[in-house]
């Protein structure tokens, strides 16, 4: 009789224990941490630019999983899961910072290139200006020379005509 009284109780206890062993332990904070960790793992920027931070997050996640499986207190599991979740966020921010730093390097190089191009263009413009001025001066000089030549020729012609006139005058007088 006494045994029969305890039998249902032990059955219930056995059922409770069985339930505990078959249903995987659950913790919402840990689920959240796992989800954000797998999201970070599929982000190539995080994987490549923040491997140390991501590994740290993975280690914390492992500790949280272990605590859950060992049946440690919910507070402990929550705490470790929280650390893991924040470390995933740190890894993601680190990746973003490094991406931005790379962008700064690239953009600075581009800006320097554009500046150099601007300076080169300025130098070329002033060279062309100097060349134009020089050509104009040369043309002016050539025109001046031609004018001088023409005037010389005219003077020569005048002198020749005057000489011819003088010769004719002398012939008439003779």
């Amino acid at each position, binding site marked *: 009789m006494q045994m029969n009284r305890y039998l249902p109780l032990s059955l219930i206890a056995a059922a409770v224990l069985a339930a505990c062993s078959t249903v995987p332990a659950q913790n919402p904070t840990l689920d959240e941490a796992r989800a954000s960790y797998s999201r970070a793992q599929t982000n190539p920027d995080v994987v490549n630019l923040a491997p140390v931070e991501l590994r740290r997050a993975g280690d914390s996640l492992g500790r949280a999983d272990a605590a859950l499986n060992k049946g440690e207190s919910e*507070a402990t599991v929550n*705490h470790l899961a*929280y*650390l893991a979740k*924040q*470390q995933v*966020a*740190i890894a993601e*921010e*680190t990746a*973003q*910072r490094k991406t*931005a*730093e790379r*962008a*700064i390097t690239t*953009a*600075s190089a*581009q*800006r320097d290139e*554009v*500046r150099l*191009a*601007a300076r080169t*263009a300025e130098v070329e413009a002033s060279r062309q200006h100097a060349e134009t001025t020089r050509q104009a001066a040369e043309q002016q000089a050539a025109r001046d020379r031609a004018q001088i030549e023409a005037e010389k020729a005219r003077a020569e012609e005048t002198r020749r005509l005057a000489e011819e006139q003088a010769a004719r005058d002398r012939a008439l007088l003779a």
Partner: protein
Amino acid sequence: MNGTKSLKSNPVAQRIGLAAIGVLLMAGCASAPAPTDQMAVSRAAVSSAMSAGGNQFAPVQTRSALEKMEAAERAMASKDYEEARRLAEQAEVDAKLATEMAHSAKAKRAAEAVQEDTRILREELERRAK
């Protein structure tokens, strides 16, 4: 039988027993020692976050770090060392996240500024070329 009798009546043995219990109690306390190092690490992390501009760039995380740090100090004062360690560890990750957010926000701003500079310079060049 004779041994137990003598132990009960022997004051020296009683004292040894009490001392042994005391040692065990102290050992028990030692399993949750004061997280002095963690507190120092967390305080440093929180002040780094503040000087990195956490208040401006990551107000939620910075506030969380500050509040947890204060709670950790209170737990330390009331000798609740396990709670103090947890709060300090959370304050540390919150502060580190705030610091990293501030750094990445500043780097993004700087990148945008340089890109804008380049764009303006290009436009200026094109206008001059016309």
